[in-house]
């Protein structure tokens, strides 16, 4: 209890000035709200991962295997040998600090260990201490330190405050990919059974059922039919999407969040309406019912395993190429890892050709996978679909470049072309917050769980701040994106930092604007809200 004779400054008890210990000795304090919950033992057991147990970061004893030090050392040695990139990233950083103020968690939260350079240093210091002669002899004078239990706890604390968005990498003069440093650190933690449920349960479900929520095929099919009911209510047109059918030209794979989660479902309805309208020869699959791949955040081996179903299903169904939905990290896996992991593609697959326009997607020669934004932008360029912008006239739209499609595959223009074809009112956020420099939603890489909402909000400040700017300047009321995680995480982000701005997928805007042959007069948007422009037209007529 506070003493009565304390001065106001003593009462406030702020620690001004430099800390009295160096960063190596400064330990994180775990408390509710600043860590994601550990994985449940049955989830870990089902996956055959090490050390399933009940534990909490709040406990002193994390119940690690007895030989945990040996496991970490061996794990690190193995990865240094297998991944040349990891070895280079450990060796070449000169701590210039170019990345220091580029991380959204650092900008919004102010914890110095969230500077990418220092976060990587948490691992690099162990590399030096354990694997370099200078570090072994000179210790911290050479930037090395011994491996201790506190180091493991610190890794868990900070490597689960990195969304692997790679914004810092953009500014690194050496091109160090900090996301890959985080990936290796998380792999090392996995070896000890130190992981989070929000990542591991989707991995387990995907591994067994094919999608993050573990939805079985019949339920998946039922839900798609619900959405077709809604499309019929809105347009008067009954769509019957092919499901698990062999012999179609295209296999369509999208994140399951588009099928199960609000507002992803409206984007999914947009896809189905578009495919119906252009007469695309495609099928959905309940086996490849998930585009997302939380294996990317777990281990290289798990990423490979979960990704394998895409080619396997294309081969089984005899599809020539795969069209992929609006997802973020799915596209990073496809663009960066898929060919190495599971390539070459099945022999009967072909370089994708848009059957409506004849465009050959040469950029997809290797993977045989085309992003839906590229596909739709091509349709629009060739004037193959009719769009009524008036239905989106009440929306002032901005576009959030999702980290992975932007920095992971360099897709900037196509989503914008699609949006502009569907809406008259499009406004960019400031240049230093979009395209390559886009700010993360702060929920990527398996961190979109609700128990760390405050961490997500502080990491979401840079994006929210730019959003508020266009909201105030241009009256923006909608932020579109091409990522299922974004469609979930940007909702609270906007509610907190720019209240009044709604979130939608790009193909929700397409579905709204799309003029379909034989449709009834549209009075509602895909969310079944009245279309405001009709009231305005009626008033003008009166």
């Amino acid at each position: 209890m506070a003493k009565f004779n304390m001065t106001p400054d003593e009462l406030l008890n702020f620690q001004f000035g430099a800390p009295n210990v160096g960063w190596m000795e400064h330990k994180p304090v775990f408390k509710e709200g600043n860590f994601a919950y550990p994985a449940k033992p049955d989830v870990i057991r089902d996956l055959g991962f090490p050390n399933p147990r009940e534990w909490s970061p709040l406990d002193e004893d994390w119940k690690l295997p007895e030989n945990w030090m040996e496991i970490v050392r061996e794990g690190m040695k193995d990865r240094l040998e297998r991944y040349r990139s990891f070895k280079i990233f450990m060796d070449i950083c000169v701590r210039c600090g170019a990345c220091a103020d580029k991380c959204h968690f650092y900008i919004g939260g102010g914890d110095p260990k969230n500077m990418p350079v220092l976060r990587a240093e948490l691992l690099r210091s162990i590399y030096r201490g354990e694997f370099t002669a200078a570090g072994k002899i000179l210790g911290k004078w050479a930037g090395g330190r011994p491996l201790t239990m506190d180091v493991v706890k610190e890794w868990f604390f900070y490597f689960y405050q990195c969304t692997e968005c790679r914004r810092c990498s953009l500014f690194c003069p050496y091109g160090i990919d900090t996301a890959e440093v985080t990936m290796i650190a998380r792999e090392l933690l996995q070896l000890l059974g130190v992981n989070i449920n929000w990542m591991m349960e989707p991995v387990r479900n995907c591994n067994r059922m094919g999608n993050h929520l573990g939805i079985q095929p019949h339920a998946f099919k039922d839900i798609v039919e619900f959405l077709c009911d809604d499309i019929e209510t809105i347009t008067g047109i009954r769509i019957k999407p092919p499901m698990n059918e062999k012999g179609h030209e295209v296999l369509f794979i999208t994140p399951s969040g588009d099928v199960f989660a609000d507002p992803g479902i409206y984007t999914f309805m947009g896809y189905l309406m578009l495919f119906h309208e252009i007469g695309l020869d495609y099928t959905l699959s309940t086996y490849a019912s998930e585009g997302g791949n939380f294996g990317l955040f777990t281990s290289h081996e798990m990423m490979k395993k979960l990704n394998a179903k895409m080619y396997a299903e294309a081969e089984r169904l005899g599809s020539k190429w795969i069209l992929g939905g609006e997802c973020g990290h799915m596209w990073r896996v496809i663009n960066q890892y898929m060919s190495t992991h599971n390539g070459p593609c099945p022999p009967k697959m072909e370089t994708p050709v848009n059957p409506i326009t004849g465009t050959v997607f040469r950029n997809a020669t290797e993977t045989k996978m085309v992003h839906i934004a590229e596909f739709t932008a091509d349709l629009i360029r060739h004037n193959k679909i009719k769009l009524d912008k008036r239905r989106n006239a009440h929306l002032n739209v901005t576009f959030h470049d999702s980290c992975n499609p932007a920095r992971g595959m360099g897709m900037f223009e196509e989503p914008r072309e699609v949006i502009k074809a569907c809406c008259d009112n499009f406004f960019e956020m400031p240049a230093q917050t979009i395209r390559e420099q886009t700010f993360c939603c702060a929920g990527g890489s398996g961190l979109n769980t609700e128990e760390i909402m405050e961490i997500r909000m502080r990491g979401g400040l840079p994006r929210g701040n730019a959003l508020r700017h266009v909201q105030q300047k241009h009256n923006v009321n909608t932020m579109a994106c091409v990522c299922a995680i974004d469609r979930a995480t940007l909702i609270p982000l906007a509610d907190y930092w720019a209240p009044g701005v709604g979130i939608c997928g790009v193909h929700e805007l397409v579905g709204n604007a799309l003029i379909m042959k034989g449709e009834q007069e549209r009075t509602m948007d895909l969310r079944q809200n009245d279309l405001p422009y009709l009231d305005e037209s009626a008033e003008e007529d009166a």
Partner: protein
Amino acid sequence: MSFLALLRSDREGIAIAWRDAIYSTYPFDTAGFLRKGQDEFKNPVGVRTDAAVQALVKHLLEETVLDDVALDAALDELVRIRAVQDFTPGKAIGALFLIKGIVRQRLPKLGKLKDHAEAVLRFESKVDSVALRAFDIYVKCRTQLYEMRLKEIKNRHAMLFRHAGLTADAAAEETPDSDQQ
């Protein structure tokens, strides 16, 4: 010269000292970053804190105070950020009380404290009332976090609720007639 007029003669000094004191509630390495970055998109915490301090100094030092909307907007700029950062509630709001120490420290250079004893107390009460408003905003922000957590869970499983017949729409469809069919 009135007490507030005295303070106004050192207005810029007070504002900078208060702002820097708030920056210094962050870790040592971060305080420098907050101070130096002028780009509101690269350094939103620093720029918003500065904007809030400027508005609050106006409110505390001028004879005419900000109206409630403007005052809340200024406080929101500061408190909304600190409510999600790694601060206890006391330390999040405590940033506002720092101005008391700053004024007490700077006052001897401006005039004699005892000549203005009553005005000092009035000034500090004004700071207290601003802090109470800040506390309201802090609680509003924290409550919003919990509401957003709930909303997110509901959104995530929207179609599963519908599939399981757990939504209001689905319940409405389950009329006795449809049961018989």
